């Protein structure tokens, strides 16, 4: 597979520097100054997503995955976040762009689906009127035309009887239907980029499967770039072409989905895999949790941010405690930020981690 020696320099750096990609994020930093200090929610993050491709961003709470998506959409409250770096949407840099121009792109060229469809829809307006509103901001059409469009969309996302359901209020929909309606709303202007932030976390497992199928089908149909943000490795395994694992505001591992699951190279990814019981394997006697808790984003540990929780910190001298590991390509576009030597990573994965999963 991709178990090659580290190649220095940017030979085949597929994921982070794909210049043709529809969405390119480069050295993104999102910092929130607070009374207690600067919260470094996202620190030096680079990735890209092409049309028709899906990137899964995986991380725990506080890893910066949601902050990243809100930065792309320009949804941080003005004045609260300090954003630097580049977010290129079809070549246009969104960082520093006039807020009103970003607004015109929102909903039209990039759209978002949120975690909890009940709270994400306005309780006082009908589902239809909320979709119509989304369509009419960016398309100068009559209400009747927009309504027809809304009904078509509801039909497309699998709402039965859309002609009458279009006039229902969100509370009259079930959880799964609401998420379908949210998707219809997001797709109303045929966006080129769709960001789904924990789209199935609030749903039951049978409904989750339906929604994941729907997202997959719609992507094939609309050929949009999709970013799916989740804490659930199972969900990204279903959908993602590439996966980026985030920890403490940084990417720690980034590669194709197959690489992440078949030959993960970062101890944090190992930890995530060891923490989750899996239905597709023999039941293990014991889960292999990551010790400790995620760090404060105000006082990110020196050296590797993961070092206090890493079982292998210190394997390579005291680099883990003093030097921030560079996020680099270790072969075939597989990026990691870890001080472990290639042979150590290989050995630990083969002998210590994989057998216990």
């Amino acid at each position, binding site marked *: 597979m991709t178990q090659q020696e580290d190649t220095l320099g940017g030979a085949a750096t597929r994921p982070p520097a794909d210049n043709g990609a529809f969405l390119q994020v480069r050295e993104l930093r999102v910092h929130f100054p607070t009374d207690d200090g600067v919260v470094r929610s996202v620190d030096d993050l680079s990735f890209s997503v092409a049309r028709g491709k899906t990137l899964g961003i995986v991380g725990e709470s506080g890893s910066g995955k949601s902050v990243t998506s809100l930065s792309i959409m320009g949804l941080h409250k003005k004045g609260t976040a300090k954003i630097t770096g580049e977010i290129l949407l079809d070549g246009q840099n969104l960082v520093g762009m006039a807020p009103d121009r970003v607004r015109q792109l929102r909903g039209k060229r990039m759209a978002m689906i949120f975690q909890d469809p009940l709270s994400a829809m306005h309780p006082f307006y009908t589902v239809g009127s909320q979709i119509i509103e989304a369509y009419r901001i960016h398309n100068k059409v009559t209400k009747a035309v927009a309504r027809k469009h809304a009904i078509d969309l509801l039909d497309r996302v699998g709402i039965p009887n859309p002609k009458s359901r279009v006039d229902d209020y969100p509370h009259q929909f079930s959880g*799964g*239907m609401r998420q379908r309606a949210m998707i219809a709303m997001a797709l109303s202007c045929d966006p080129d980029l769709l960001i789904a932030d924990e789209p199935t976390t609030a749903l039951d497992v049978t409904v989750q499967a339906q929604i994941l199928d729907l997202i997959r089908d719609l992507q094939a149909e609309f050929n949009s770039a999709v970013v799916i943000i989740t804490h659930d490795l199972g*969900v990204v395994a279903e959908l993602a072409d590439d996966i980026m694992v985030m920890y403490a505001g940084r990417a720690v591992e980034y590669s194709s989905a197959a690489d992440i699951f078949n030959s993960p190279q970062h101890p944090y990814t190992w930890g995530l895999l060891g923490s989750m019981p899996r*239905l*597709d394997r023999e039941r293990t006697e014991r889960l292999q*949790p990551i010790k400790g808790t995620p760090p404060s984003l105000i006082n990110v540990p020196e050296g590797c941010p993961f070092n206090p929780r890493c079982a292998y910190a210190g394997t390579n001298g005291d680099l883990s405690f003093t030097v921030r590991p560079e996020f680099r390509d270790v072969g075939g576009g597989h990026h990691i930020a870890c001080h472990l030597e290639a042979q150590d990573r290989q050995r630990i994965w083969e002998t210590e981690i994989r057998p216990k999963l």
Partner: protein
Amino acid sequence: MSTKTETAAADRRLGEDLLVATDLQKHFPIRRGLLQRQVGAVQAVDGLTFSVKRGETLSLVGESGCGKTTTGRLLTRLIEPTGGKITLDGRDITHLSAGAMRPLRRDIQMIFQDPYGSLNPRHTVGAIIGAPFRLQKVKTEHGVKRAVQELLELVGLSPEHYNRYPHEFSGGQRQRIGIARTLALRPKVIVADEPVSALDVSIQAQVVNLMEDLQNEFDLTYVIIAHDLSVVRHVSDRVAVMYLGKIMELADRTSLYERPMHPYTVALLSAVPIPDTARRDNRERIRLSGDVPSPINPPSGCRFHTRCWKAQEVCKTTEPPLAELAPGHQAACHFPENTTKLTIDPTGSAA
């Protein structure tokens, strides 16, 4: 049906029945109209029969609205059953008053999902964990403080945390505090309602392991209520799959996950996303359409028939009884999977 003695003998590790629910029911009335007459009821729990054996972990799993949380609250008698019977260690606790229940609260304790909401923010950790001692007027050998500090160490916190407040802790640590509180009186049974679902993946594993360690150390019996089928498989000895207030299937862990009989269980297992990209395309999927129907007007006959791909006419009219189709494996289905048995017992076992 098949021999009960056989199953009991087959598994000696599990002791006798500790907590038994018989035809347990909970209906929440719906009132309407001028005089607020009862016009219907949410049949949250509708006739559950199961037992929890000493030292085992029984999980109740199902989607929202299946009644698993209500069941947990019934077992701990936080709410009053509408019908049926609950016995704890041979004693009928079905309709005990709050006062009569109090001494028994030492034996049965509950862990809640939300580690934020279930701890009083104005009390110190010491006061929270020490409360059960004070409320139950339990004498401790070296004083309450010492006992609390021992509990803190037991759940992996530092004794120095005694004087801190809940907000100073992370989600996982708060769940540990919650566990320490339930452990204070050395209960026999702990009912845990989604104990890890609000926690991050890496923290989930820590808490799961902690609960297992404590079970071994104190011979605890767990009733775990959860929706995550992977976690449930990891922690349970036996699993009950619930749907719309009924048990659809109840079996020991291995046979439930390897040979699920009820179509609903099959569909649930098939819907769980597998963290393996290789399985993405060649996986056999069973997709249920639609959502769970309302428990106010549950479907006739088998409650699952509206979403079941195997449903026939009989499923709409006749409710299949929960029957033992293999040793230790009960399912309520007219057309079960993974069984050599006849689909419907011709001798008429409709209990």
